[in-house]
């Protein structure tokens, strides 16, 4: 056991774990001294075999604040992580989500007492459907890959109902997202990987060669992971539909197209959205996300439950009817809640069922809807246009000193390659990435997509100013110039971070994630 010292408060390499801090009896206790715990909790719930640390409240606060200082996030600096859309999360989202009426709502609350939350879910669902050209969405899945799985389960059930179980192949271009083949395999489909053409796009001719009466789904990301718009998307969709397959749109890159073009109009039958990317909910640590899954009209009945249903308020609801009359007499326009009631619909016989418990993450629905209403339809359209503008600005400047294998107008992100630099100096994309950390910025996505060697995938997002972009470009240029003069300096990076170059092989081979008492 040790206690926190001023040394630990400085950022050192290995601060003690919370289990290694504290002394017996130190924890602040808020129950009355001398009263047995049995007075507060049933005896059956009490146990003493957990080696929980005994820390004072102040030490706990310091411990976690200190840890928080060792992380990096969008609130601290530029975060150009390609395909992740690390944009600013407006604080108004949190202000809305922490309102008592949402934050303290219990999932077992009957529909009649949770009309506000249900209305938020309903309006979010309707807004997404209209923005992306889908017949309906289900807000049930918890994240993007979770929604992908939901979509493929929908496809599977749809084909089963049609007696087309022979359809066992899912086509995934090599410019799609890494989760696509995983979701398809998880669902029991065979994955056919499709190489992209020299323009970095899916070729209509090539895809026709792999299509057949065993084609279930073609999963595409548009723009793809090279940041390029699939300009033959109508022909591709027509070819897939021709053989009876379904088109799936991976919404990971929706920030590039929102409000400008709609996947529904491109010919997609299924899609998902990552609310943490496009709609500014937090990217939090792999948990508590939100990934609505959307479908075209012929698949609506398969959506995961629950789905929020809206009905016109019944006339015999006298009190409300009088309120409504008064409201309209006072000149206030009628809000949907004045005329409609909302309910959770679990009774959907063809549904694939729930992907998770309860109503999914309602607070995230509140955040996403706040973002949409704060921007409005025109604002959301502009968001995408600025994201594309920023990406192209950085792309053109970076092309001065790094290869850009696809030198054409990109969408919200682009790929650069350190292949030539590596051949000349030995400095790899990984070293450039580590070096950026020394300059207080997050690294771009590296080594993805796999078709570009020594790949750096850069997505600046619309929320960064020109000054920030210029600073990033200057720093990147400086790193590349240093690499040409003294490569060993770049290869030694990072040197200013709390933790230096980590041993990634050991981290993958010997993960040590569990504390055990000495």
């Amino acid at each position, binding site marked *: 056991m040790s206690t926190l010292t001023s040394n630990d408060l400085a950022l050192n390499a290995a601060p003690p774990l919370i289990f290694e801090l504290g002394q017996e009896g130190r924890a602040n206790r808020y129950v009355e001294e001398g009263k047995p715990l049995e007075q507060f909790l049933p005896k059956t719930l009490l146990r003493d075999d957990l080696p929980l640390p005994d820390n004072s409240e102040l030490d706990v606060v310091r411990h976690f604040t200190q840890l928080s200082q060792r992380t990096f996030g969008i609130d601290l600096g530029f975060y150009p992580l390609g395909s992740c859309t690390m944009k600013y999360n407006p604080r108004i989202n949190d202000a809305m989500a922490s309102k008592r009426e949402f934050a303290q709502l219990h999932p077992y609350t009957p529909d009649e007492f949770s009309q506000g939350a249900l209305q938020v879910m309903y309006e979010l669902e309707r807004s997404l459907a209209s923005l992306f050209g889908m017949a309906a969405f289900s807000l049930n899945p918890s994240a993007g890959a979770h929604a992908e799985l939901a979509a493929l389960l929908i496809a599977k059930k749809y084909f089963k109902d049609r007696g087309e179980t022979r359809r066992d192949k899912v086509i995934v271009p090599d410019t799609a997202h890494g989760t696509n083949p995983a979701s398809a395999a998880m669902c029991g489909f065979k994955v056919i990987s499709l190489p992209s053409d020299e323009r970095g796009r899916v070729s209509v001719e090539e895809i026709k060669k792999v299509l057949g009466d065993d084609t279930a789904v073609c999963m595409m990301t548009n723009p793809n992971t090279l940041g390029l718009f699939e300009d033959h998307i109508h022909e591709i969709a027509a070819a897939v539909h021709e053989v009876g397959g379904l088109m799936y749109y991976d919404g990971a890159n929706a920030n590039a197209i929102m409000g400008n073009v709609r996947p529904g109009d491109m010919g997609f039958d299924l899609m998902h959205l990552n609310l943490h990317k496009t709609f500014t909910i937090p990217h939090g640590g792999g948990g508590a996300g939100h990934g609505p899954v959307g479908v075209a009209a012929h698949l609506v009945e398969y959506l995961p439950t629950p789905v929020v249903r809206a009905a016109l308020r019944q006339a015999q609801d006298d009190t409300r009817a009088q309120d409504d009359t008064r409201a309209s007499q006072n000149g206030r326009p009628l809000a949907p809640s004045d005329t409609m009631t909302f309910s959770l619909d679990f009774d959907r016989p063809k549904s694939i069922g729930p992907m998770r418990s309860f109503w999914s993450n309602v607070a995230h629905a509140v955040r996403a809807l706040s973002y949409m209403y704060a921007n409005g339809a025109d604002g959301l359209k502009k968001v995408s246009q600025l994201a594309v503008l920023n990406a192209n600005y950085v792309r053109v400047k970076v092309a001065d000193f790094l290869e850009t294998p696809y030198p054409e107008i990109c969408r919200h992100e682009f790929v650069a390659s350190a292949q030539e630099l590596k051949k000349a100096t030995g400095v790899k994309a*990984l070293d450039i990435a580590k070096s950026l950390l020394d300059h207080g910025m997050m690294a771009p996505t*590296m*080594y*993805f997509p*796999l078709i570009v*060697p020594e790949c750096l995938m850069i997505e600046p997002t619309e929320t960064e100013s020109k000054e920030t972009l210029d600073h990033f470009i200057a720093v990147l240029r400086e790193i590349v110039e240093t690499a040409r003069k003294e490569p060993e300096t770049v290869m030694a990076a990072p040197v200013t971070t709390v933790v230096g170059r980590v041993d*990634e*092989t050991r981290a*993958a*081979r010997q993960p040590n994630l569990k504390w055990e008492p000495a």
Partner: protein
Amino acid sequence: MAQPEGLLYSKEHEWVKIEGDTALVGITDYAQNSLGDIVYVELPRVGKAISQFGNVGVVESVKAVSDLFTPIGGEVLEINDTLENDPAAVNRDPYGAGWLFKVKLADANEKNNLLSAADYEKIATE
């Protein structure tokens, strides 16, 4: 770097060393260098019948997970099980201690579908 002579190569960056009616298979130096530090190798099980250019396993590095294709078909006779504890051997010595598996050849003519060291060199340095 120059590719060892006496081996045959596939476009998918595997090498094969044919000895009579058996063959030893591994990935090339170019492949290990592009993948970076290898942390896991999933090999076909012994006794499995594999066909030329078929997907037989997975190579996982800190950068990426890549499919492993066999440059030659036949029956798997032996696998390099030291890689389970030491996958980095593929990085250190791709043509030696980092070999992957041994095959009993199904069809000796399959070697005609493979590349010479010089031809592979052209692909790898493109």
